[in-house]
Each structure stands twice: as structure tokens, then as C-alpha cells.
């Protein structure tokens, strides 16, 4: 039962991450999930020490990180990526002061081997909800990605959409750390998307394929993990990268 629940949770998280990732590629945001995952490490460490859900620990730290980057960017006018480096490295450093070393693997590359029923239900509910919101904001967000100026000229509230978008990223990162850990979150949003980008001829295909590759790589990774007792997170990423390699050769 627990194995089935972890497979199910992983599939939903992978799908939602791939779907959201398809919105992050055009905004040059794919890598942002990486630092945000690293930032979550202190939260993950606290969750491991006190035995509560990893995502619950990660979420406030991811939000704090996004807020700090946003604040520093406003105050300093430095590029966001440089500020991200400052913030996320600090997050990792702080985590290592109190991260229980025997549980470091779970924190760094994830552990979805045992999932309780209530966790699975909550995870699936959040995944469905975020995917639903992604679908709603998709047209306007695509327009904003193409040109903020056009979007603004059409009186679209760009700030509001960006805020929703960042909150979605925070949710997916918080869920993602459970599956692939603090180190690998960039991969679950980035790889299915670039694979899909290689093959898609239009937006509908692009969204569908990103979602599908997210699901497929999670399913394969977790299944392999249950066979081999290697950690699922790295197996998911390797499966995903393998699909990407195939897509290079299938590309038109």
C-alpha cells in the first residue's frame, strides 16, 4: 500500500512539476527551482528533526527566499540571479549547521519510499489545484512571457500574474523536495519541459508532453527504485534525462 501511495504521489508531483515547468522555460526561470530547492534545506532539516512532513517544512523557507530575492532586487537593482546565489548558498550553509547527518540523503536527493495516506491525499490535492491554476493563467502568462509591454498595454495586471506564478513555483518546489530532495528540484521542472520543447509543434502538444514526460519519468524512477532499492529521486532524474536524450534524436 505504502509503495503504491508513493508511486501515486510521485506521479502527481512529476506531472504538476512538468506542467508548471513548461511555463518557466520561456521566462528563463527553469533554473530558479534549483536555488529554491536548496533554500528549502533548512526547512527540510527541521522537518526531519521534528518528524513532520518535508513539504510543510520546505514551503515557508521557499516563500521566505522568494521574498528576500524580490526585496534585495528592489533595494539593490542587482540582477536576480546574483542575488539568488547569495540567498540560496546561505540557505544551504545554514541547513548544514543542524541537518542530522544520517538523514542527509533524504534531504538532498529526496525520499518518497514511505508515504502515509493523508500525506498522499494532500499531495495529490495540491498537485491538482496547482495544475488547475497553471491552466487558468496559461494564456495570459504566455502573453506576458512573449512581451510584458503588450500585456501591460492590454491592461493585464502583470504583477498579479507574476505573484500567482511565483506561489505556484513555491508550492511545486515544496512538493518536489519530497521526491527529489533539495538538490534536484530544478530537474523535475526543467527536463520534461525541454524534452517536450524538442518534440512539440504547438502549444497544446507542448503542455501535454511536458506533463506526460513529468509523469512518465516519475513513474519509471519510482518503479526502478522499488526494484533496486536505489534512491528514487536520482532515478527519476536519470529517467527524465534519458527521455531527453531520445527526444534529441526524434527532433524533426
Amino acid at each position, binding site marked *: 500500500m505504502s509503495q503504491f501511495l508513493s508511486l501515486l504521489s510521485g506521479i502527481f508531483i512529476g506531472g504538476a512539476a512538468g506542467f508548471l515547468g513548461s511555463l518557466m*522555460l*520561456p521566462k528563463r526561470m527553469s533554473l530558479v527551482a534549483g536555488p529554491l530547492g536548496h533554500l528549502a534545506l533548512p526547512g527540510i532539516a527541521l522537518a526531519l528533526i521534528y518528524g513532520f512532513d518535508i513539504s510543510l517544512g520546505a514551503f515557508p523557507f521557499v516563500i521566505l527566499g522568494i521574498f528576500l530575492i524580490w526585496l534585495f532586487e528592489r533595494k539593490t537593482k542587482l540582477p536576480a540571479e546574483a542575488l539568488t546565489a547569495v540567498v540560496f548558498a546561505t540557505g544551504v550553509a545554514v541547513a548544514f549547521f543542524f541537518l542530522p547527518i544520517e538523514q542527509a540523503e533524504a534531504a538532498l536527493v529526496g525520499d518518497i519510499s514511505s508515504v502515509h495516506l493523508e500525506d498522499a491525499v494532500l499531495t495529490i490535492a495540491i498537485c491538482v489545484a496547482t495544475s488547475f491554476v497553471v491552466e487558468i493563467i496559461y*494564456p495570459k502568462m*504566455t*502573453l506576458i*512571457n*512573449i*512581451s510584458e*509591454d*503588450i500585456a*501591460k*498595454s*492590454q491592461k493585464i495586471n502583470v504583477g498579479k500574474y507574476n505573484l500567482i506564478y511565483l506561489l505556484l513555483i513555491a508550492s511545486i518546489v515544496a512538493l518536489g523536495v519530497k521526491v527529489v530532495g533539495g538538490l534536484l528540484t530544478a530537474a523535475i521542472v526543467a527536463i520534461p519541459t525541454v524534452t517536450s*520543447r524538442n518534440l*512539440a*509543434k*504547438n*502549444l*497544446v*502538444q*507542448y503542455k501535454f508532453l511536458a506533463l506526460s514526460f513529468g509523469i512518465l519519468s516519475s513513474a519509471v524512477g519510482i518503479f526502478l527504485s522499488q526494484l533496486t532499492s536505489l534512491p528514487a529521486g536520482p532515478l527519476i532524474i536519470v529517467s527524465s534525462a534519458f527521455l531527453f536524450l531520445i527526444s534529441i534524436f526524434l527532433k524533426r
Partner: protein
Amino acid sequence: MGDAVLRVENLNVRLNGEEVLVDLSFDVHDGEVLAILGPNGAGKTTLLKALLGIVPYQGVVKWREGVRIGYVPQRLPFIKDVPLSVKEFFRLENAPENEAREILRSIGLGEEILGKKVGDLSSGQFQRILIGWALASDPNVLLFDEPLAGIDIGGQESLYNLLERLKETKNLTILFVTHELSIIYGLTDRVLCLNKRMLCMGAPKEKLTPEAISNLYASSIKFYQHKHEEGELS
């Protein structure tokens, strides 16, 4: 010439502490084609953005009540990142497929382009699609940033004809930015010479004297700091 569709009074724009537009006042009439002419860094793109309300400004920009504005920016560098078909691009503007087909006909493109990826179009086709896309919201006014930039002579010619036809058939008011003198004479009713300030405004044949032109471009050499406007648009 109809009533004023746009009134601008004492428009000033400062970006990052630098004066970009200084004390501009002008009217645009219904059905008029106004060219905004000036060298690189003269603030032409910024003027369009101020008129659209997407950069902060001081002064008055007053559009006539209920006017619908279509905007065609200079370039859309990020559009190639998205695997978007032409049909889907029109759908972003809430244009149903049959309307998109009709627009395509009016801009001289076949239906088969609907299934193509926007990123795969030639620059001439892309520019036409952008114009068509701006027309999808059924605007009364088109704001146009360098409509002919990056297009070969043949393509320029046909785009120019397209603009002329749109002007006649749709009774559009068109404001377009350019630094090329050649396209101004045939198409435009009035020209606004801009280099941070308004240096001249009126019918091109009267106002674009050799002195006015050398004044417009010579003064730019003094201030020119290689601030290419395309860079501001990303």
C-alpha cells in the same frame, strides 16, 4: 481630418534619473497617420510606451473615451522560446479561428500559415502576423514601433502597401515610429521630429527641410551614447 483622438500636454519621462522625453505637447486627429521620426536613442519607443501607459510619465496623455489601441512592438525576441502556432497566437488575443482567417486574408497571407510555428516564420511573414494580431482586437488606433525594421526591400514594399490599404479600408489612426525618411513621404499626414524634445511637427513636405533633418540628426551626434533602443525592449 476628424477630432482629436489623442491629446498630449507637457509630457515628460525620466528613466533611471535620465531625461528621455522633455515637454512634449501635440494632438493626433482621427484617421491620421503620424510618423515619429528621430535618431537612435531619441525616445521614440519610450514615447509609444508612455502613450500606452506602460512607463511612468508626468503630464497629460488623454485618449478619446472608448478608443481601442493595438500595439505592435519592435521585436518579440522571446516568442521563439514558445512552440506557438499562428492559430494559437491569435487565440491568445481571443480571436476565434474564422476571424483569424479573415484577418490573414486582409494582410495577404494564406490559411496554411495558421498551423505553422510562429518561430519558423520569415521576418516579413512575422511582421505581417504581428500587424494582423494587433488588428484582432479591432482597434481604432495602431501604435507601431519600427514596422519595417529588419525586412528586405521587397518585403518593405508590400508591408508599406498593406499599411496604406489598412489606412484606407479600416479608417485607422496610425502612429508609427521610424528612423527612415524614405517611408514617410507617401504614407504619413504629419511627422513629429523627436530627439528628446519635439523639434518639428507638421506635414512632411513642409517640415522635413534639409535644415530640419540635419538639425534632428546632427543634434543626436552630440548626445548619442550608443544606447540602442532595441535593447530597452526585451
